[in-house]
């Protein structure tokens, strides 16, 4: 029989436990994705919280490589933009990062 403590840690909506990202917020963002997303299973935000961690990890890693190439120690937003542009997987972010870079200039 599993202990209640570790179990509620996994289920608690973003309060405690292994989730680094708030589940309610993830759910809100999912609903705004359009396409008439109405019903979302309770487990979807939980899957996403993990997926987002992995996504942030991957993009951060690639961005940091750009930072290092520039011999800098501060990861800036241009590094993130460069990582996006250099990775096919992140093509869906191209408009987003080029808008971003545009805003500051």
């Amino acid at each position, binding site marked *: *029989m*599993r202990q209640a403590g570790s*179990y509620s840690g*996994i*289920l608690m*909506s973003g309060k405690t436990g292994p989730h*680094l*990202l*708030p589940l309610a*917020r*993830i759910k*809100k*963002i*999912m609903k*705004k*994705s*359009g*396409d*008439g*997303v*109405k*019903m*979302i*299973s*309770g*487990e*979807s935000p*939980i*899957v*996403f919280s*993990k*997926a*987002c*961690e*992995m*996504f*942030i*990890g991957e*993009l*951060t*890693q690639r*961005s*940091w490589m750009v*930072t290092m190439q520039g011999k800098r*120690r*501060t*990861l*800036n*937003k241009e*590094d*993130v933009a460069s990582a*996006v542009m250099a990775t*096919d*997987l*992140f093509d*869906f*972010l191209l408009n*987003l*990062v080029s808008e*971003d870079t545009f805003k500051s200039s």
Partner: protein
Amino acid sequence: MAENIIGASNEDDVGIKEQDRLLPIANVGRIMKQIVPPNAKISKEAKETMQECVSEFIGFVTSEASQKCRKERRKTVTGDDICWALATLGFDNYEAPLKRYLHKFRELEGEKAANQMKATGHDYKQEEEEDEQYPLKFSLIGRNQQ
């Protein structure tokens, strides 16, 4: 403390949409910090850009999953749909770890639901989703099902 909005202190403020469509910058920043070396710095703008990217990622994957559900005439986007969408969109190395994660969650959920039913006859999952109806398989409302 306002994360992205100057002067905003109330998350319920209807006029402020920013906090609704982005994940909290502190959480995002914490995950980023786990990747870079301890003495590395991350600019605030980089964290903000990452916030935007994650929201875009969620929308992108959810759209794909939701389209699949529509095609298959299902109303509810499930964790499996998310895993499928991720693999379809190129994030295939996410699929296996996420499936393991989801499997573990379902195992625990099954146990908890069984315990809850015994204790109160109440479907605890209704506390998680305020405004959604439940697809039949989650409707474990205790009506002499034992």
